[in-house]
C-alpha cells in the first residue's frame, strides 16, 4: 500500500511526538524498535511547533534517504523539520552553513575543506592530539580526584584541537575555550549564554580578518588562499565556516568522550580487554559511536520531489528525520543491538556520522580524538571510577546532541 502524509485520515489517533526520550541512557528511545518492525517510515509531530515530519528508522532506508539527490538540507525551505524555535525573521537572515547547503554550493564549499580532513592529514595530527590529551591528564592527576571529567577533559580536548586547526593564536586559547565551553553550559542564564555566543562570534570575525591580512599555517588561511582563485565564499561565509567547525566538532566529540568513558566503566570486562590490547581501540570507538549515535536527528532533510521509501511516498515539501540512532539499532544489521560489544564485526556500518554527501567531514578527526582520550585514560589512570551514583547523573535528554552534563570521576 502506498500512503502519503496528506492521505492520512484526519480523525486518526494523534501523532506521536518527536523527540522521544531515551529512557535508558544506554539504549535508543523505546518506541524505535516497534517503529522499525511495524511502521518503519512513519509520521510524528515535532514537539517544538506541532508540525508533522516523517521518521525513518531502518538502516537501509536511512541510507537510502541520505543518499538521495531529491532531499535538501536547507533549513529555510518550508517543511524542513526544525527541532528548536527560530523566529521567521531570523531564519530569513541566517547565513547558511555548509551543513545546510545543497549542491552545487555544498559541493563547492566541501571541496574547499576536504583536504584538511583526509585520512593522512588526520594521521599527522595524531601526535599533537596525544600531547593535548596528555597535558589535560597531567592536570587531572596533579589536581587529584574527584574531578568532573566533562570540564577537565571532555570539553577542553576537542576545543583545543579545533583552536589549533583554525589557527587561533596561543595566547587566545584560554578565552576561546571559555566561550566555547560556555556555549555548551546549560546552567548559564540566557544573558550569560548570549554574551558568550556574541563574544565568540566577534572573536571569529576578528580572527578571519586577521588571517586575511596575515595568513598563517592553518585551515582558515588555507581556505582564504584557495578562495582567492575559487571565489566560493565571502567574509561572512568564512566566519560561518569557522563557527560550523566549532559547533560541529566541539560538543559532539565532548559528549562522546564522556559517554564512552561512562559506558566502558560500566563494562569492566571489556575495559580490561581494551587496556590489555590497545589494538582493539579503533573498533571499540566505532561500537561506542554506534551505541550512542548522539546526533540521532541531526540528519534532517526536506523532500524536494516525491520519493518512495519502503511502502511510503514522501511528497515534495515534507520533512524527514532520518534517525541514525534508530538505524544503528536495526537488528537486521546489528544483532542484539542494545548490547555493547567492542568486538562487534559490523560496528563500522553505523551511521552516527551520517551518510551521503553531508557525511561528517570531521569523522576521522573525531575517531583519532576518541582513541587518544580513551586509550590514554586506560593507560594512565587504571584506577578510574565513577565518583557518583549512576542515578545521580543527568543526561541531555532534550538536547539535539545527546550527552551527560557532568561525569564525576576519581581514582
Amino acid at each position, binding site marked *: 500500500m502506498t500512503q502519503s502524509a496528506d492521505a492520512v485520515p484526519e480523525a486518526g489517533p494523534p501523532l506521536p511526538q518527536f523527540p522521544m526520550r531515551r529512557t535508558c541512557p544506554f539504549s535508543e528511545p523505546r518506541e524505535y524498535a516497534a517503529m522499525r518492525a511495524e511502521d518503519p517510515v512513519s509520521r510524528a509531530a515535532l514537539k517544538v511547533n506541532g508540525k508533522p515530519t516523517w521518521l525513518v528508522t531502518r538502516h537501509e532506508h536511512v541510507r537510502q534517504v541520505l543518499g538521495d539527490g531529491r532531499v535538501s538540507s536547507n533549513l529555510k525551505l518550508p517543511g524542513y523539520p526544525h527541532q528548536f524555535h527560530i523566529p521567521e525573521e531570523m531564519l530569513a537572515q541566517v547565513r547558511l552553513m555548509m551543513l545546510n547547503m545543497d549542491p552545487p554550493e555544498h559541493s563547492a564549499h566541501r571541496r574547499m575543506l576536504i583536504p584538511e580532513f*583526509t*585520512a593522512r592529514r588526520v594521521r599527522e595530527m595524531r601526535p599533537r592530539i596525544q600531547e593535548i590529551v596528555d597535558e589535560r591528564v597531567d592536570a587531572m592527576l596533579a589536581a587529584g580526584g574527584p574531578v568532573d571529567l566533562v570540564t577537565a577533559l571532555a570539553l577542553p580536548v576537542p576545543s583545543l584541537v579545533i583552536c589549533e586547526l583554525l589557527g587561533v593564536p596561543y595566547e587566545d586559547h584560554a578565552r576561546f575555550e571559555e566561550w566555547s565551553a560556555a556555549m555548551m553550559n546549560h546552567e548559564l542564564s540566557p544573558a550569560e549564554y548570549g554574551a558568550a555566543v556574541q563574544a565568540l562570534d566577534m572573536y571569529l570575525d576578528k580572527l578571519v580578518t586577521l588571517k586575511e591580512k596575515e595568513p598563517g599555517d592553518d585551515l582558515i588561511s588555507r581556505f582564504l588562499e584557495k578562495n582567492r582563485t575559487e571565489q566560493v565564499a565571502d567574509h561572512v561565509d568564512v566566519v560561518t565556516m569557522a563557527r560550523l567547525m566549532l559547533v560541529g566538532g566541539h560538543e559532539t566529540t565532548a559528549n562522546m568522550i564522556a559517554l564512552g568513558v561512562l559506558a566502558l566503566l560500566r563494562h569492566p570486562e571489556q575495559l580490561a580487554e581494551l587496556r590489555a590490547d590497545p589494538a582493539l581501540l579503533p573498533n571499540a570507538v566505532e561500537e561506542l559511536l554506534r551505541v550512542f549515535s548522539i546526533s540521532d536527528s541531526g540528519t534532517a532533510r526536506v523532500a524536494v520531489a516525491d520519493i518512495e521509501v519502503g511502502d511510503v511516498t514522501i511528497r515534495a515539501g515534507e520533512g524527514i528525520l532520518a534517525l541514525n540512532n534508530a538505524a544503528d539499532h536495526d537488528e537486521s544489521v546489528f544483532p542484539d543491538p542494545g548490547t555493547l560489544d567492542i568486538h562487534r564485526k559490523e560496528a563500522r556500518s553505523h551511521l552516527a556520522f551520517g551518510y551521503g554527501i553531508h557525511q561528517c567531514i570531521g569523522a576521522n578527526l573525531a575517531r583519532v580524538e576518541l582513541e587518544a582520550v580513551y586509550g590514554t585514560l586506560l593507560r594512565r589512570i587504571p584506577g578510574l571510577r565513577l565518583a557518583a551514583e549512576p542515578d545521580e547523573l543527568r543526561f541531555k535528554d532534550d538536547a539535539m546532541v545527546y550527552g551527560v552534563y557532568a561525569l564525576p570521576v576519581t581514582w
Partner: protein
Amino acid sequence: MRVSTDRDRCVGSGQCALLSPEVFDQDADGLVVVLRESPAEELRGEVLQAVDLCPSRTIRVHD
C-alpha cells in the same frame, strides 16, 4: 578483482583510505585515488567493506 571509482561523486570522507590504505588514498584535493587497480585477493574483504561504507557510492568492484 578490479577496482574503479567515479571521482565526480567522491565527497572526500576518507572512509576508504582508512579501511583499505593499500588500495585507496586521497590526493591533495582530498579526493579518492586508487593505488592498486587489481589488488591482491586477500584484500577483497576490506575493499568490499569500503564499497559498502563509502557514503557517496563512489567505488566499484568488477569480478
